[in-house]
C-alpha cells in the first residue's frame, strides 16, 4: 500500500524527509502525478506530493516576474498570466496526455524539474533559461534558496538553474521564480507543403538564420501532418513545414513577405493567421499529433538541426517511424512500434554518431525498467553526477532510480 505524504508547508516537507532519513526509507516525488509514467520505473512505498503547496506568491507584470509554489498547476499560472496579456516565454510542454495522464495536471515544479520546452525554445530559450530562483528542500532535509527574483544575478553558483532537468532527484522544489513575457500582439504562420524532410529542415534552418525572428520552426511529415486537429491543414495530405512569426501586426505582415522572398525556392506558402495560428501552435505544444497509445513508443531526441533528417532516416531502416520535428530539427519527437527493447540500440546509435542524445518518453513500465530512459553517461560524467547527487541527497531518499538505475 503506497503511502502519500502531502506537505502543505516547507517545514512540514523538511520534517517528512528527516523522518524518512531516520527510517532509511526513500520516496517518489510528484506534483499532481502528470509525470508519474515518465522516467525510469520506480516503485517506492512512499510518495511525496507537492500538490498542497500551491498558489502564486508574487506577480509583478511590469517587472516580468512571477513566483509560484511548486504544486501550482501550469494551467492556473498560464490563466493568470493571460489575464494580463502575458505568458511563459518557453511554451512548456505537458507530456502528461501523451504518456496517458489526464491533461492539465502538470505542476510548475514539474515544468522546471523536467525542463521540457516547446517550439519557442529555439528562438528565446528553454525553461532553464527563464528560471530566476528556487526554494527547495534537499535529501538532508535542509531548506535552501538559490537565485532570486531579479533578471541578472551572478551571486554564487547557479544552483537554481542546475536543478532544472534533475527530475526531483536532488531536491524537492517548493517555490520557483521565473521570467514572463508579454504575449505577442499578432501571430502568423507560413505553411510550406510537400517538402521532403531534408529540404524542410534546410528551409527551417535558413529561416532561423534570417533577421525576421521566427519563433516556431516545425516540420510534420505526411502521416503526422494528417493527425492535426486543424482540418484545413490535416486534409492537405502532404508534409507540412511551419514557420511562426509573432510581433505587432504590421511587423508580422512585413516579415512574412520578406521571409517568403528569402525562401522562394521552397515554394509558395499558405498563411495561417490570427487565432487559427495561435490554436495551431497550442495544438503542436500539446503533442496531440503524438497521441497516447500502448502500441507505440515515444522518443525525444535532441540534436544539431541539420542532422535530424539523417537520424530519422537511419532509424527508419530498422523500424517504422513517425517524426515530429521541432526547433528547426533540433528536437525530434519520434514514434516507433512498441517493443521490449524500445528500439533503443538503433535509436541511440543513430543519434550518437551524429551528435545529440535521446530520452525515452513513453513506454510500458517494464520497458522503462530495463531500457535506459536517459542517455547513458560517460564514466567521467557519471562520476560527477554521482557526486552531485551525494552533495544534495547523500542517503538517496529522493526519487532513487528515477533517472539512472544506481543514482
Amino acid at each position: 500500500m503506497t503511502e502519500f505524504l502531502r506537505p502543505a508547508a516547507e517545514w512540514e516537507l523538511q520534517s517528512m524527509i528527516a523522518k524518512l532519513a531516520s527510517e532509511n526509507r526513500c520516496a517518489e516525488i510528484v506534483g499532481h502525478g502528470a509525470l508519474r509514467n515518465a522516467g525510469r520505473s520506480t516503485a517506492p512505498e512512499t510518495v511525496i506530493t507537492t500538490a498542497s503547496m500551491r498558489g502564486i506568491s508574487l506577480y509583478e507584470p511590469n517587472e516580468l516576474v512571477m513566483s509560484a509554489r511548486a504544486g501550482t498547476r501550469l494551467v492556473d499560472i498560464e490563466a493568470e498570466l493571460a489575464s494580463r496579456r502575458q505568458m511563459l516565454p518557453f511554451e512548456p510542454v505537458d507530456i502528461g496526455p501523451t504518456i496517458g495522464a489526464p491533461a492539465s495536471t502538470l505542476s510548475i515544479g514539474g515544468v522546471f524539474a523536467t525542463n521540457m520546452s516547446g517550439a519557442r525554445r529555439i528562438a528565446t530559450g528553454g525553461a532553464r533559461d527563464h528560471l530566476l530562483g528556487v526554494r527547495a528542500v534537499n535529501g538532508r532535509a535542509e531548506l535552501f534558496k538559490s537565485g532570486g527574483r531579479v533578471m541578472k544575478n551572478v551571486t554564487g553558483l547557479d544552483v537554481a538553474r542546475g536543478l532544472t532537468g534533475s527530475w526531483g532527484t536532488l531536491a524537492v522544489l517548493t517555490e520557483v521564480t521565473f521570467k514572463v513575457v508579454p504575449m505577442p500582439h499578432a501571430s502568423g504562420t507560413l505553411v510550406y507543403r510537400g517538402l521532403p524532410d531534408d529540404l524542410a529542415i534546410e528551409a527551417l534552418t535558413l529561416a532561423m538564420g534570417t533577421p525576421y525572428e521566427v519563433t516556431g520552426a516545425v516540420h510534420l511529415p505526411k502521416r503526422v501532418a494528417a493527425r492535426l486537429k486543424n482540418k484545413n491543414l490535416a486534409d492537405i495530405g502532404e508534409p507540412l513545414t511551419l514557420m511562426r512569426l509573432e510581433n505587432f501586426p504590421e511587423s508580422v505582415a512585413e516579415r512574412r513577405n520578406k521571409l517568403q522572398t528569402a525562401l522562394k525556392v521552397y515554394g509558395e506558402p499558405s498563411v495561417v493567421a490570427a487565432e487559427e495560428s495561435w490554436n495551431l501552435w497550442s495544438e503542436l505544444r500539446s503533442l496531440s499529433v503524438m497521441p497516447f497509445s500502448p502500441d507505440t513508443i515515444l522518443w525525444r531526441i535532441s540534436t544539431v538541426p541539420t542532422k535530424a533528417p539523417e537520424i530519422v532516416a537511419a532509424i527508419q531502416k530498422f523500424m517504422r517511424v513517425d517524426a515530429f520535428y521541432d526547433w528547426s530539427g533540433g528536437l525530434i519527437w519520434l514514434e516507433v512500434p512498441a517493443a521490449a527493447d524500445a528500439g533503443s540500440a538503433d535509436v541511440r546509435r543513430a543519434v550518437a554518431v551524429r551528435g545529440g542524445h535521446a530520452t525515452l518518453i513513453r513506454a510500458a513500465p517494464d520497458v522503462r525498467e530495463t531500457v535506459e530512459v536517459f542517455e547513458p553517461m560517460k564514466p567521467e560524467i557519471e562520476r560527477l553526477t554521482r557526486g552531485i547527487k551525494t552533495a544534495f541527497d547523500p542517503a538517496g531518499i529522493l526519487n532513487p532510480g528515477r533517472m539512472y538505475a544506481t543514482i
Partner: protein
Amino acid sequence: MSLIAMPEPDNGAVRRRAEIIEDIAALVGRAALITDDDGRRAFETDALTAYRSVPLLVVLPRTTDEVSKILRYCNDASVKVIPRGAGTSLCGGALPTEDAIVLCVSKMNRILEVDYANRFARVESGITNLAISNRVAEKGFFYAPDPSSQIACTLAGNLAMNSGGAHCLKYGVTTNNVLGLKMVLIDGTVIDIGGAHLETPGYDMMSYAIGSEGQLGVITEATVRILRAAEGARPMLLGFESPETAGACVSAIIAAGIIPVAIEYMDKPAIAVCEAFARAGYPLDVEALLIVEVEGSEAEINALLKKIAEIARKFNPKTMEISADSDHSARIWAGRKSAFGAIGRISDYYCMDGTIPLGKLSHVLTRISEICAARDLKVANIFHAGDGNLHPLILYDANKPGETAKAEAAGAEILKLCVEVGGCLTGEHGVGIEKRDLMSVQFSQTDLAVQMRLKSVYDPGWLLNPAKVYPLDASEPMRDGVRIYASEAA
C-alpha cells in the same frame, strides 16, 4: 590598505617554488611559463587594482591537453591554481595569491568551427568576446552577450562570471547563449558538457559551470550560440524630472508588450559627467535620462519608437529625442558608452553592481544618496533599467588616507540595500573577493553549504581559486580538508 583578508599563504608551496617551476616546465615547456619578477608582476592584479599579490608563476598553455597536465600536477602536488582570462574582473576574481600559480588561457584563442545553418561557433576559451562577433559579422551574425569590456575580456572570463551586457534584456546573459563546454577538472579529467545541440542530457552541469568563477574547473573550449543580427537598431532619448516618472515610464513600455533591446538609465550626476566628456547633447536639467533602443527594419523601428513616444508622453518628459540616423544614434550612445572613462577622468571611482526590482528604483536611489552623503562621498548611478542591474559609481580620492575604506564601506552598505529590497549583490561582475564577505547577507549558512558542497564535488582539495566567493569562515572547514561531501560519500 587591504580590507579584505586572504588566508595565510601555504609556505610549503612558496618554499617549493623552484621545484614547481621545473616540474611544470617539464610538462609544457619553459616557453609557456613566466617566472621572472617583472613578468609575474603583470599578473599580480585584475581590474580590482586595489588588491595585488605576485603569484608563484604564470603558465600560458596552448592546448586542453596541457591544461589537463598542469591541473593534474597541481592536484597531486597540492598547489593552488588561479584561472585567468584577460584579467578584466572588477571583483578580484582573477586576483592571485603568493602560494598559487596563475593559469592563463589567453593563448588559446582560436575559432575552431563556425556553422551558420545550425547557428553555433566552437571556439577556444581565451578568445576575446568581440572577436567572436567580428568573425561572424561577415554573414550578419553576432554573439549576443556584450559586456562593456568586450574588446579585451575573454570568453573564459565571461563564462566564469556569466557576464551580461547592455543587450541582455532581449538576448539573455552568457548562460543563455552557450550550448557546450569542454572543461578540465582539477585531477586532469577532461569533460564535455552539452554540444552543438540545444539541451544537455542529465544534470545541468552547464549551469553549475557558467558563473562558477573558476571554482569548478578550467573551461578550454565552448560552443556558443550565434544569432542573426536585426536589420537595424535605433535609440531614443527621454529625460524626466524624477526617478519615479522614469521608472514608471519603463514599466509602462514593458506593460504595453514592448521589449526594447536596451533601456539604459542615467541619473543627474552621471548625465553631467558624460555630457561634459562626450558632448552627446544630453539635457542637463533633468533628474533621469533614459536611452531606449529598439531593433528591426526601418519601418518597424519607426513604428516602435512612435509607440514608445506615445507612452512616454503620458509621463511628461522634459526631453524626447528620437534618433534620425546612424550618426545621431552614435551621438546618443556616445555619452553612455563613455560613462566609465568620463567619470574615471574626474575622479577615482568604485563601481558597484547590485540588482534591484525596478519598482524599488526610486527608494534605492534616495538611500544611495543618503549612504554616500553620510560619508561625504559623491555618487553617480548608471542602471540597466530593463533588467534591474544598478551600477552606482562611488567617487573618492585614492590618495586621501581613509577614502578607499570609506568608499568600500559605502559600497557594502549599498549592496546590503539591494539585497534588502529583494535584489542581489551582483548582477554581472561576480563575487570574487570583493563581495565575498557579504555573501552571508544574501545567503543563509545552509544556502552557502549547498553551494560549497558542489565545489567540493568538483575540487575536493579546494585548490581552484580558493578563498574567493565564499566567506572565509564558512569555507574554512572545506579548505582545510574537512570534506563534508567526501566523508559522506565514503
